[in-house]
């Protein structure tokens, strides 16, 4: 099992979610995050004083997937999140050691 984590532009959340649905992904977790990558932030002006705002708002999407599914999940998420402009974000994959469904106690891939 793998955990796919994507940090993408907030307005791309719906696109990523709809793109995942046909793959039979059973669930995902979304958080509002902020940070910076290569994309520069923006400038704000208050009474003539300029502030550079470096942290840009993003959404973090986390999806658990079976090993056989991971490649497809990643490809679909990357495709759906892409605008081609700087600041599109990143997607990465990590190993998941154990997984338990809280309600039933099922473990491993049964819990996906």
């Amino acid at each position, binding site marked *: 099992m793998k955990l796919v984590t994507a940090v993408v532009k907030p307005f791309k959340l719906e696109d990523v979610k709809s793109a995942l649905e046909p793959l039979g992904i059973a669930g995902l977790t979304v958080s509002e995050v902020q940070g910076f990558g290569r994309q520069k932030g923006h400038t*704000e*002006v*208050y*009474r*003539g*004083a*300029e*502030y550079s*705002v470096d942290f840009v708002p993003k959404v973090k999407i986390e999806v658990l997937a079976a090993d056989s599914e991971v490649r497809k999940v990643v490809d679909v998420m990357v495709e759906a999140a892409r605008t081609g402009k700087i600041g599109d974000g990143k997607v990465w994959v990590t190993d998941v050691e154990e997984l338990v469904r809280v309600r039933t106690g099922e473990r491993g891939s049964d819990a996906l």
Partner: protein
Amino acid sequence: MKIDSGNTAWVLASSALVLIMTPGLAFFYAGMVRGKNALGMLMQNFTTIGLVSVVWVAASYSIAFGPDGFHGLFGTLHEAGVQHLGSAVAGYSGNLAQTIPPVVFVCFQLMFAVITPALFTGSIADRMKFGSFCVIVVAWSLLVYGPVAHWVFSPTGWAFRLGALDFAGGSVVHMNAGAAALALAIVLGKRVGWPQMQMRPHNLPFTLLGAALLWFGWFGFNAGSALGANQLAGYAFLNTNTATAAAMLGWVIYERIVNGKATTLGAASGAVAGLVAITPGAGYVSPLGSIAVGIMAGVICAFACRLKFRLGFDDALDVVGVHLVGGLVGTLSVGLFATTLINSGGANGLFYGGGFTLLGKQALVSVAVIAYSFAATLLIALVVKLIMGLRVSADDELAGLDTTLHAETAYEIGFAGAGGTYAPADRPVEHPMGTGTR
């Protein structure tokens, strides 16, 4: 003494309008500070209503409007405790005779006394001890506001007798508060991290809502200062709105040209600068004159807000740039635009054939108010600093005044709550996870 019920009703209603300006100011300022200091700012303003309301009745009304004590410098304590109100307010006789009961005048002027020290909370934001603030407000009300109001507002005051014009408080309220703000910012010192650290406004919608309440309440401030429901009140009302509108446009156009963007904070600030600047002339200038006053105020105050970075004093929310400078622009512009066509009890300014006489008087009173307020406030602040200290610790300042001074949080965001336990106030709170760094 002839009492007019219409005039009395208008001044009572105006008093309530002026009261709402202080909570309005609280939100205007609170939106501009960081979220961890929002309650600290609101609390300073609300507490000022409490402190000054009591001090006014006890003594400072009498210092301002009691019988003259010494060459028009201050009133005696004859009316301390708001006693002996049976006869007319000192000096208001002949052409100046009031047509409202003296106690109504006490109410109306109280609201001015309240908002004036509240104005300087913008310069001391985010770093002053609460107890020290309270002591400063009380001392300032008695030693600075009372005397200056006596000079300018009371017909027995020296500035009034000189013939200087201040319809609703350009000098008494705005220059006075602005000069005090400068002195306090200097004695208090800069906020930790200023000007390198980011201190963005945390809620500009609050600031705009606050500005809207100020604008609304200011009709009581200026049109109420006619002390009657009459044509003069109408002119003051229209001039207030016109100058405010022009100043908002002036500020926004200035920043659009200089900084590239028109901002909501600029619109709110411009409106307040216009309200400040038209205050002394609302009942003396024509509506066309008020446009000129407003545009000048908008542009000059927008420019003046940059000065603190050059001069190095941390007037956090630009009380000097808006109130000292705006009050000065307004007070001097009375010397230019005042016309007896609007108010036969006034005088003609430079542009209406009055020569430099009125302008000179306006300048003299401006210098006197700024100098006295600055010096007296500096002295009060230094004494309080010596006895009680002025600043919270750097750690508390970084943590924010809301939790460190008031044991509260302005905003709970998200649904996780605060964790921890709760116990009624008479039992100690248990900290099963330990008390951390407290």
